[in-house]
């Protein structure tokens, strides 16, 4: 029994009776035991996983109907509510919060008999790019433990790469699924805005974020997307995808497709190894029958500033509810007055969250809103228009996922702007609502480089087809875990 298989292969093995769900889940838990002391992908584990596996095995024995996941062990980023489990957002502010209800995506997975194996580590409240801002310690890149795994869904990417689960759900606000996917060489996806319900996702920047899966193969990603996508009356921002099947015809290929390489994303800020990998990806696409050209998006140069302005403003509002009155951590309120109590309680936010909240109070405030927040909204609108224009010329857009290669823990943590710029290539998809994917492509000095593709809104199927085509040209060496 090999843990290093795709989800679809796993399902086949279970169906063929080559091993039981309990055996696979057991081995997965052993893997976590073995590696997670070092990697720290998980914040909590499901102690009922084996029981749940046993129950599903019994169903199979009795020939009863079983969900499409067949007990697949899936991990969940700790900002997504799983009923009855601690959901901490990797923050001391919510260290005792047990979710009393379930996110829509979790209900959907559970109804297809997935097994939630545990909750994964992240940057606190999803604000960060390296998982170093977790209040419970960073996660480590499985390719090299001294290196960051990316963020904010770092734990998810690590768990998938290190075979501690078959797939994971993360959240992507400015690149938080694609970035760690690239750094850890897994597939990471941000759906079209509104494709996947955000009900149960603890909000950071609600107008631009989406829940996205991380998997080892593009087919697995399509499979998971089939389960979690679809209009949800609990989320007014979801759209009707008419039950589109993302897995069927995934091998359609890219013959005749036009691909645009975003000029601004392979400019001066990008490592030369990353640029060269990107050019290799373009060549591969041309060999597959696609036509490549250069596309320029002027607004990309302002996209990081716009993103951080908008996300900080929304975070400032979304995190206002953490006043420790109804949920949070143990801090008696006797002797305090309201405003001083909540100010003291909110010292439990970590330093990065604190900084972003202050920024988020500043940029939309009277006298400054015009210069910052309202300007950022205009950049967002214009960028969307530019991207829509580009999609009249090409079918897909391509860029490296991250302009630079993975770096060491602690290397960039004190330079806020250097950190911001790691998002340079990913925020465009969030600001414009377009679907985007990161596919593992090359290794450079033993560290992964991922390639990113974007498509028009609601063209997630075409995007996955292109990603699948590229994936099949990639042969990365085995990882030593």
């Amino acid at each position, binding site marked *: 029994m090999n843990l290093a298989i795709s989800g679809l292969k796993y399902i086949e093995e279970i169906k063929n009776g080559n091993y039981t769900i309990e055996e696979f889940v057991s081995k997965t838990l052993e893997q976590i035991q073995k590696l997670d002391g070092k990697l720290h992908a998980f914040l909590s584990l499901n102690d009922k996983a084996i029981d749940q596996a046993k129950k599903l095995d019994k169903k199979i024995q009795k020939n009863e109907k079983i969900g499409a996941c067949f007990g697949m062990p899936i991990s969940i980023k700790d900002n997504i*509510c799983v009923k009855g489990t601690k959901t901490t957002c990797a923050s001391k502010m919510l260290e005792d919060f047990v979710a009393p209800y379930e996110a829509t995506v979790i209900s959907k997975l559970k109804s297809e008999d997935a097994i939630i194996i545990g909750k994964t580590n992240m940057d606190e409240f999803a604000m960060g790019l390296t998982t170093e801002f977790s209040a419970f310690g960073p996660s480590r890149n499985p390719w090299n433990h001294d290196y960051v795994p990316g963020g904010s869904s770092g734990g998810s990417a690590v768990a998938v790469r290190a075979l501690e689960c078959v797939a994971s759900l993360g959240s992507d606000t400015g690149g938080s699924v694609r970035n760690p996917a690239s750094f850890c060489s897994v597939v990471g996806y941000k759906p079209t805005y509104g494709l996947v319900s955000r009900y149960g996702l603890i909000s950071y920047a*609600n107008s631009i974020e989406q829940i996205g899966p991380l998997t080892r193969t593009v087919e697995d990603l399509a499979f998971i997307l089939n389960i979690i996508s679809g209009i949800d009356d609990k989320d007014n921002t979801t759209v009707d995808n008419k039950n589109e099947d993302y897995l069927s015809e995934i091998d359609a290929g890219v013959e005749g497709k036009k691909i645009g390489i975003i000029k601004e994303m392979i400019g001066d800020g990008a490592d030369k190894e990353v640029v060269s990998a990107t050019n290799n990806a373009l060549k591969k696409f041309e060999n597959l029958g696609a036509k490549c050209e250069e596309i320029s998006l002027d607004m990309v140069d302002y996209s990081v500033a716009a993103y951080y302005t908008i996300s900080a403003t929304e975070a400032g509002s979304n995190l206002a509810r953490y006043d420790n*009155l109804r949920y949070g951590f143990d801090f008696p309120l006797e002797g305090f007055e309201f405003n001083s109590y909540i100010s003291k309680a909110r010292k439990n936010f970590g330093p990065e969250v604190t900084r972003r909240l202050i920024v988020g*109070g500043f940029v939309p405030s009277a006298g400054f809103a015009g210069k910052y927040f309202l300007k950022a909204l205009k950049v967002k609108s214009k960028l969307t228009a530019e991207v829509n224009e580009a999609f009249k010329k090409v079918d897909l857009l391509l860029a490296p996922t991250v302009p630079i290669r993975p770096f060491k823990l602690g290397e960039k943590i004190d330079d806020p702007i250097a950190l911001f710029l790691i998002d340079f290539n990913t925020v465009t998809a969030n600001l414009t609502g377009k679907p985007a994917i990161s596919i593992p492509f090359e290794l450079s000095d033993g560290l992964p480089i991922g390639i990113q593709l974007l498509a028009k809104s609601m063209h997630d199927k075409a995007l996955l087809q292109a990603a699948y085509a590229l994936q099949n040209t990639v042969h990365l060496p085995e990882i030593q875990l």
Partner: protein
Amino acid sequence: MTKIGLEIHCQLTNLESKLFCTCRANYRGYEPNTNVCPICMGLPGTLPRLNQKAVEKATTIAMALNCKTPEKLAFFRKNYFYPDLPKNFQITQLNVYGPTSIGLEGKVLVDEKEIRILRIQLEEDPGRLIYEGSSEKTQITLVDYNRAGTPLVEIVTEPDFENPKQVRLFLNMLSDLLENLSVSDPELEGAIRADVNVSIQGGKRVEIKNIGSFHDLEKAIHFEITRQESLAARNIQIIQETRHWDEQRKITISARRKEEELEYRYFLEGDIPWILIDSQTLDRLKNDMPESIISKKERYISKYKIPSQVAEVLSSDKFYSDMFEQVRDETNVKDVANIITTDLMGLVDTKEKRENSKLTPQHLVELVNAIKSNKITRTAAKIALKEIVKSGKTLSDVISELDLVHVSDASELTRIIDQVLSEEIIAVEQAKTNPDTINYLIGKVMQKTKGNADPKLTLSIIQKKIQT
């Protein structure tokens, strides 16, 4: 030149559910924190689910106040910290990107004066706070979220009111209007709350909050006008500020409002798309709107020739006008109007009495016909009505049970009168000179006929007999 403006908050108590979740809109009667769910408690990860009927009802109110209703509605966040605010922001409406709130630029006529409605917005009510212990020793605030998320329509007027009387008339008209539209029950405690702003002689505007009742509102306005006038008389500047109404002392006091607290960082609510209201929906809402009170009153006067006073009472109370519409036909219009506004009124003047009333339109139809055909007298009808409201029995049952058959035969009546006159010899003598004593005799006849005798007829027969 006194200028008064109003900011009124109306709860849409007739809706089934709250603005953003499926908890009950009318939270009264629930144990604290039992009419709640993860959404209205602002739990992490929850999202608002906008109530379609709330948007429709709010739009209807906007139409009734002659407002423009935009094609696209947008919602915004108003950010501030307060324990009654579960998310520490309120979802409300603004018009910073063009017209996007429920209604704008409306107007109504109040006592010949045109009052302009600046805007109407749809928003959520916060929860309720209870302070434990006396205000000096208060250590803890207790919070009940039952009310959090209740749909509110905020109506802001221009400062067009010139005196408290106009304000009172407006508020009464608004209450009647809301009841007529079946969107809100103004009788419910806290269903309609109002803040007011006052300025005199073109000076600074002073806002007054925390006014508990309409009665207090008038007092507050009077007080504030007086306060400002006395300051102006001594050439003291009136500062633009927010003041609180002190219910105990019946005065307004300055509410120390810090600059920073007014920074709400308004921005679009990202969890609610812009809502498109198509013209079909608008037409349907317009057509489904019940007739306005003013229109009803005019119709009653001009078409049915009902006296103005009576028409006023009938039209302004939905219970009466509904009853009237169901009972009237071409022949009995005036009689129905009459019986509702005289005999029936006293029997159903409270909400409780109306809820317990067993009266149906059919009952009234029969009653009015019975009076017209002289089957029973007005007096008997009054008794019958009371019984019907109480028991719901049919008119014929009530008539026979209470023996209310009208004595219309003059000879039968004469026989009873003769009986009374023979029993009351002294009174008969006195009646020759003292008209009051005739009333005493009529009373005796009424007793014997259980109130069924025709008073006019009885009087004329007695008078004739006494002369002889």
